């Protein structure tokens, strides 16, 4: 096994009165796509800027390609960064921009223009070398920013929410392109984003960050199907959150009752004793609908509700229910078959979900009893 391209060892960064990055340790394997996912203010930008070298950690060490980066200036690190606003140089042509880093290494003009053109060719901008930055579209600029970094063959490519400024359609397109670029270059990518869909689609591994720490580090599938903390369950993907108390334990499952008397069952994650305040998370696609309770799987606890509204969004369509007794909101994905496309508001409907596919956690301090 080769040494990881990036190793962070107990990295700490404090600003005045708060800890932006709190003793963080992780490693990123060579050639993988690693994402740091978190809401704004979680410390992910600080972490990325420490890797790039713009900020020195207060404590701990960052090693890139097996070499400690303590005291190494950004221009001497084998790392390049794609900036959030791209930061392309308006005073240069696209070709000069891509060749900029090579020029700084003292490469001859002929050689660097050759490499710059070859790199632009590889990202599908073969004829753009003589254009000015403002003549390019958003997606093309994105590719120039990536080409400008990759032409230097860095050990690590850092990407600071590079898709944030694009419109939705282009963002979806660039997601696929980024993934293909990373696969074809084989460079290790470290990507930060607050968009969980970007992180899930692109990454081999994702670190979910909150308050300067990783809540969970794992594959996108791990985060989605096996969240380890309520924060991850709430942040990654859509989820129905139900707050209550554990009333009974049944092997790996727990029975939870809400304050107003709705009883559900879910898989325990971590230690939960009877009487503990818990948070239950049920994904919209885990629950199934039926016009009569008899059509539901007989081994699952059955619930009933009233249709509040139908949220049509093509393949992501869902129905928003109110649980019959407690009037709590509950979101259920509509099946792709179009079976329930004729649902009307105020219609009564039955639903159930597999308790082993719903998760529950001991409630986070300060959130017990609070509803989502």
């Amino acid at each position, binding site marked *: 096994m080769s040494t990881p391209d990036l190793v962070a060892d107990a990295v700490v960064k404090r600003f005045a009165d708060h800890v932006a990055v709190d003793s963080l340790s992780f490693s990123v394997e060579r050639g993988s796509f690693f994402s740091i996912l978190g809401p704004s203010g979680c410390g992910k930008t600080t972490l990325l800027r420490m890797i790039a070298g713009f900020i020195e950690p207060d404590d701990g060490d960052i090693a890139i390609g097996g070499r400690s980066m303590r005291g190494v200036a*950004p*221009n001497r690190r084998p790392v390049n*960064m794609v900036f959030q606003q791209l930061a392309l140089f308006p005073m240069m042509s696209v070709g000069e921009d891509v060749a900029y*880093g090579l020029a700084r290494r003292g490469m001859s003009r002929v050689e660097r223009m050759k490499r710059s053109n070859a790199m632009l060719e590889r990202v599908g901008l073969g004829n753009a070398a003589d254009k000015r930055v403002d003549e390019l579209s958003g997606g093309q600029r994105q590719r120039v920013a990536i080409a400008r970094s990759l032409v230097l063959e860095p050990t690590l490519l850092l990407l600071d929410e590079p898709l944030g400024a694009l419109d939705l359609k282009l963002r979806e397109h660039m997601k696929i392109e980024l993934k293909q670029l990373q696969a074809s270059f084989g460079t290790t990518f470290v990507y930060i984003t607050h968009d969980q869909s970007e992180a899930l689609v692109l990454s081999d591994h994702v670190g979910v960050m909150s308050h300067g720490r990783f809540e969970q580090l794992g594959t996108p599938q791990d985060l989605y199907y096996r969240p380890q903390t309520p924060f991850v369950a709430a942040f990654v993907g859509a989820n129905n959150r139900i707050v209550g108390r554990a009333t009974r334990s049944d092997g790996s499952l727990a029975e939870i009752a809400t304050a107003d008397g709705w009883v559900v069952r879910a898989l325990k994650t971590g230690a939960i004793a009877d009487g503990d305040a818990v948070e239950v998370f049920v994904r919209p696609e885990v629950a199934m609908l039926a016009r009569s309770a008899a059509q539901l799987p007989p081994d699952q606890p059955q619930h009933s509700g009233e249709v509040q509204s139908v949220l049509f969004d093509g393949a992501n369509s869902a129905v928003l229910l109110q649980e019959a007794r407690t009037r709590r909101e509950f979101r259920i994905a509509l099946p792709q078959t179009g079976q329930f496309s004729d649902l009307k508001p105020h219609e009564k409907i039955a639903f159930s979900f597999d308790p082993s596919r719903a998760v529950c956690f001991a409630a986070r301090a300060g959130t017990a009893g609070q509803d989502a």
Partner: protein
Amino acid sequence: MDPRWHARLALGLLLAPALLWLGALIILPHVDLAVLSFRERVGPRQYVASLAQYKTFFAEPLYWHVFLRTAVMSVIATGLTLLLAFPIAWIIAKLARGRAGSLLFIICLIPFWVSETVRTLGWMILLRESGVLPALLVKMGLTHVPVELLYRDATLLVGLVYTSLLFMVVPLVSSLESLDDSLIEAAYDLGSGGFAILRSIVIPHAAPGITAGCIVVFMLTLGNYLTPTLLGGKNSQWFTEQIYTQFITRFNWEQGAAFGFLLLALSTALVVIGLRVSGQRFGDVMRRT
């Protein structure tokens, strides 16, 4: 009334003060000066058209020597002002945040609340033989007797730079403020050191501001009369003094007018050369001022 005619009238009225100012105070006197400069007095109230005034300028070494000296000193003063103003503008635009930035700006502005004459006299109080600085030098044991610091070229340059500094700082600050910090970071990230960033990113971005500041400062310096007269004295040999002498002392308006036009030609020529060398367009530059 035809609305289009109405609009034209409104535009004309709006432009009237500017046109009056241009016509009455700039174009008209210059036309008159041009006529003056191309004639020669042959007897009492008798004039003939001639190039005598311009011939005198080239024939008399003192005149074109002073002329060249003024040009060279103005270029040096402009260069020094740029070197001094750039770090100041950088600090105001990039390093000082919020209130500190405006405070620094006000500090640059404060001297201009005092009239130029008083400011220059202030320099004289500091620098003359019986002044503050020579006395200080004696006290520190650096010189045995007080030295006269006035009437030297260096003193003249100090005065000129001091007078022009603000006019360089303002366009520089505005052009540096518009430079996105992430461009600097990106250049740093791509392997540039401080000097390479300055040369490849900061200066190209600030070029219109630099050119604008240089043009303004150069013109102000070239046309300055007070500072060279007070700080340089007789040694200053500034071309504006020659013009003054011709008009007021010699009462030779024809010669003075010719000198005036030569100075105008000089400043125009140097500004055009400056724009050519820096690859800037006049329109872009003036938008930054």
